[in-house]
């Protein structure tokens, strides 16, 4: 006999674990991400809606959630158990869109607060009115829980009529799964026409996986085939390893069939008796409670590593994306440095200007051409790097995140930024040249702009511009020329590094904004191991 004894340490460990789970994010669209997100939400819902409140207050009433496929007669079953129409039943599918919770009036305080299912807005409807009328505008109709009270429900038990688990409305499906996860007792309803459907069997398998306290109801069985269908269903359950699950059969009766009426009390009597027994016999109650609670606790052992694995995969993918960016920019950086050294800037327009320099071209024009050519070189490097990043990212499913796909670093702005940087370099170089010329005590001081143009040519022209160096030395002396070239060269490297760095950071910014870290993985596992220790 398992019993539920809860120590405060366990609760602390559990709420720490809950926070870790809540903090886990899976923003990159990897193959396993949607599943991990769903698992996370489900686990969080189960912790918030069921496990934590249950362990905090073991005396709270048992919650039996009636779940099943559309048209299985869940609402009719709940109505019949209660003895009056609390949940609307009907022929149109899906019928139940708002979950309905029924409990004894004295238990009402347990459910009117946000103790369980804190995400759902409570609605109090006196009788037979549709909940939709009472909703505030803008309130999501599916995120509402109707709380009903009835004297006929035994104390310490609450029945919850959940929406369809296979509803056409996707929100309903999610809600149904969430509600079922919040149950102490899972009441699975299926019908004679449905007992072989795939969907209810998934749910049964899940119940088995979590080792929840489970009851199955075979509803709507035409009375002439009751024994045969029931026998086959039992065989299927046994085959699935669920042979020991309490099984109840409710016949299809004409007065109840599709009109939403109530089944006679005798039809649901065995189920009712069982529920009353579980509620009122302390041992049975304790057993039912502990089984579901420990089932969920045990399931954490498998579910937490799964989440941690998904978090690790997220981080690995983010790392791959980052390293693709870094590799692309690094290799382009190397290439652009090589090009600078070989004098690639002194080509085309700049080269023509340089050839015409002293006679047919002014120093200003030469400088303009050089600066423009340098800007073109840097822009080319940046766009080439971006292209390589795009290429690499195209092969990464994680790069399809909408935040990353957005082509924010537009070419124009990159061009603009590079142009600014290069112009600033020119200005500073001209200042250096002026300093150098001013320091010169010669009768005829050389034109500072010509000096700046010569330095720029010598720096950017590589081997080809050897004569520029010579010209410079002639104008301001070998010593001064060397110093100016050194300073200018350092300035150039500095600006080049800054440009490449800025552009790389800009490219990485959206990825950084996604905030994918390696910590969640370790934290999830750590929280789990703390919990294991406290049990």
């Amino acid at each position, binding site marked *: 006999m398992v019993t539920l004894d809860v120590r405060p340490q366990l609760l602390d460990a559990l709420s720490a674990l809950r926070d870790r789970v809540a903090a886990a994010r899976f923003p990159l669209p990897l193959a396993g991400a949607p*599943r991990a997100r769903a698992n996370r939400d489900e686990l969080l819902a189960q912790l918030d809606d069921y496990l934590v409140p249950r362990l905090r207050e073991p005396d709270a009433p048992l919650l039996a959630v009636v779940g099943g496929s559309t048209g299985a007669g869940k609402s009719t079953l709940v109505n019949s158990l209660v003895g009056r129409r609390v949940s609307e039943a009907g022929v149109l599918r899906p019928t139940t869109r708002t979950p309905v919770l029924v409990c004894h009036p004295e238990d009402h305080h347990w459910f009117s607060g946000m103790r369980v299912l804190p995400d759902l807005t409570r609605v109090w409807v006196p009788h037979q009115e549709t909940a939709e009328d009472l909703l505030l505008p803008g309130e999501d109709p599916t995120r509402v829980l109707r709380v009903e009270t009835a004297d006929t429900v035994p104390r310490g038990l609450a029945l919850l009529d959940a929406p369809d688990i296979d509803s056409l409305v996707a929100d309903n499906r999610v809600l149904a799964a969430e509600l079922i996860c919040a149950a102490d007792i899972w009441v699975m309803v299926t019908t004679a*026409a449905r007992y072989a459907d795939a969907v209810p069997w998934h749910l049964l398998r899940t119940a088995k996986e979590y080792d929840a306290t489970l009851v199955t109801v075979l509803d709507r069985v035409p009375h002439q085939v009751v024994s045969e269908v029931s026998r086959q269903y039992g*065989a299927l359950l046994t085959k699935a390893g669920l042979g020991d699950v309490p099984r109840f059969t409710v016949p299809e009766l004409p007065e109840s069939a599709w009109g939403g009426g109530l089944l006679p009390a005798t039809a649901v009597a065995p189920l009712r008796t069982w529920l009353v027994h579980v509620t009122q016999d302390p041992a049975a109650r304790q057993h039912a409670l502990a089984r579901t609670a420990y089932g969920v606790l045990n399931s954490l052992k498998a579910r937490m590593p799964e989440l941690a694995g998904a978090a690790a995969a997220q981080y690995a993918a983010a790392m791959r994306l980052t390293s693709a960016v870094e590799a692309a920019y690094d290799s382009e950086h190397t290439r652009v440095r090589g090009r600078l050294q070989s004098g690639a800037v002194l080509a085309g327009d700049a080269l023509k200007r340089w050839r015409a320099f002293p006679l*047919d071209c002014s120093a200003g024009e030469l400088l303009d051409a050089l600066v423009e050519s340098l800007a073109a070189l840097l822009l080319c490097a940046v766009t080439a790097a971006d292209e390589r990043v795009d290429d690499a990212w195209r092969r990464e499913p994680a790069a399809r995140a909408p935040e990353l796909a957005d082509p924010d670093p537009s070419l124009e702005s990159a061009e603009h930024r590079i142009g600014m940087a290069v112009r600033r370099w020119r200005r500073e170089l001209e200042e250096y040249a002026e300093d150098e010329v001013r320091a010169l005590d010669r009768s005829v001081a050389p034109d500072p702009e010509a000096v700046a143009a010569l330095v720029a040519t010598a720096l950017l022209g590589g081997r080809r511009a050897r004569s520029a160096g010579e010209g410079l030395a002639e104008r301001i002396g070998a010593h001064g020329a060397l110093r100016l070239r050194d300073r200018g060269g350092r300035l150039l490297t500095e600006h080049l590094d800054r440009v490449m760095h800025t552009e790389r950071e800009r490219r990485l910014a959206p990825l950084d904004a996604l905030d994918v870290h390696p910590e969640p993985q370790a934290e999830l596992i750590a929280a789990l191991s703390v919990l294991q220790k406290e049990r």
Partner: protein
Amino acid sequence: MTAVTDQDHTEHADHAGDTVPKHDDRENGRKGESASEKGLQEENGDDSPWEGAREHHARVESSDSGRTDSWQTGKSRHTGESRHTGEARDTGKSTAPGDSQASADPADPADSWDDGLIARRVTEGAAAEHAALVESRAHSAQSAAPLTYDSTLRSRLVALRELVGLSRTRLDSRTLAEAGRVLDEAAARHRLSGQHTVVAIAGATGSGKSQLFNALAGVPISETGLRRPTTAAPVACSWSDGGAGLIERLGIPPRLRRRPLQNGDNDTQLCGLVLVDLPDHDSAAVQHRQHVDRILTLVDAVIWVVDPEKYADAVLHERYLRPMAGHAEVMFVVLNQVDRLPGEAADQVLDDLRRLLDEDGIALGEYGEPGATVLALSALTGDGVGELREALGQFVAERRAPARRISADVDAAAVGLRPVYAIRRRTGLSEEARDEFAARLADAVGATAAGEAAERAWLRNANRACGTPWLRLWRWYQDRFEPQTGRLPVRAQPDEKATARQRVEQAVRTLADRASSGLPAPWALAVREAAVRGSQGLPEALDELAARAGLPPGRPPRPGWWPAAVLVQASMTLLQIVGGLWLLGQIIGFMAPNLGVPVLLMVTGIVGGPLVEWSCRMAARGPARRYGADAERRLREAAAGCGRARVLDPVAAELLRYREVREQYGRVAGVGATAR
């Protein structure tokens, strides 16, 4: 016939008077087809599905039926089998997320159905007891005219085939798989009987598919029961002979082929119907769903059987009805078991079902519009079965279901291919982009700077030539002290990398971006690749070109007035000298003192020299500008020509290929077909 065929009648007015409409139609079809196929026939030849089929048709007419039919059956059996395995694999892979658990679970409940508790197989003996005739092989030997497609569908299929052929090198085979499958199915169906319509009955477990099947056949052919799921393998029932090939194609073994109750009225009404009872699609038995998925791709029409309990099941709507919304015209949706509903609840449920179908995007065939037929019936009591039989009879008698199904398949394939063909906006290389590319290349070779340099050099030379000798002397003197920088003889050697690599690279990248913007990804990639491939070697070519297309060697051309100006300048100098000498002669007393003339001569020379120089400079501006512009233009044109040949043309060719494919796609999607 369809509206499009009617249109054909008016187009080919010479055929309008023909008395046999069917013949006429075929004639028209051939005409349209030969027109549309003309360019294709040499290369495509026998591949065309109806090409072979027409011959086939001829052979059938020449009563060589036995051989043909056996070939046909053999062939189709083969297709059926290969399709079967393919589909099975496909379905296994693409199970819905909710089902992944089932397939991943080692203790798959699907296997657990193999026990004796749930009878999966229809026992042969039991089936035989039901007095249904098992169709004999002799029937299948009878020939049936193969299916004909109308000209619109034919041209769309031609376009689809061409589209697949054109894009095979650009797109991966997975993208084209669906289109290929549709083509195969269209060809396979085309070979088979056009007199028959294959209709499948599909639905959830326990909805009463088999009951309806039996009700239509008039005999209990397919086993019905309470055990779920009941029917494990598809059962076929053919109302008339000659449909063996069709059933063979579905992969239904002969032991599961049946004949309906022989009954005159029944026979004539549903003549040409081949009804297939499918297993369920929603039970835990996975192989049932695989059967359903496979056969649903092969049949001409589907009757979806739903019941009041399950009509809103997510699996039915999300997995089947929504993806098949385009097939509404070949779809019946029947609400079975209405006898279980009290009073007007049946109408309510039927209305709700209509609403759900509408939400699924399925057009409903109400008020004479084309679309799905929605009926309520009870197979148990026979209520409404007559209506279905009537609707089915009319549907089968029209014999248009196979073509409609194929047409809907082509639609679906076109929609599926949309992302890889359709574009968001107008694409292509604008004149602007081309100009910009040329300008960037010109920048890379330095055309502007070269032109300016040439202009200035020319002007300088002109100034020097026409300037006063004194000025020249002074300049020469000054030049001696100027440090030599730019014009060192070292740089006169041909440069190996005169073209700015980075500018060429950037120009090509910008062009590729412009050209590929808005294109679907595979085509954008192809355009980019074409541009990059073309740009290889482009800088070297530009280097060489710049060296060749530079200024012509030798002296730059000089205007005609130049010698005159030089002469005038010289004479001015001469005047100065003469005046000076004269004055000198007077000063030393060699000559008679006459101050006026020599001073005048000298003043004329002194004033005239700079005057001539200035006017020459003014006059030289025009030729200098022309000379510079000429130099610039030569480089610019050479660079642009080189870029056009190496990059622009391949890119344009790639864009043209895309446009062709796009046009084909338009034809497939049916836009081009109506526009033509």
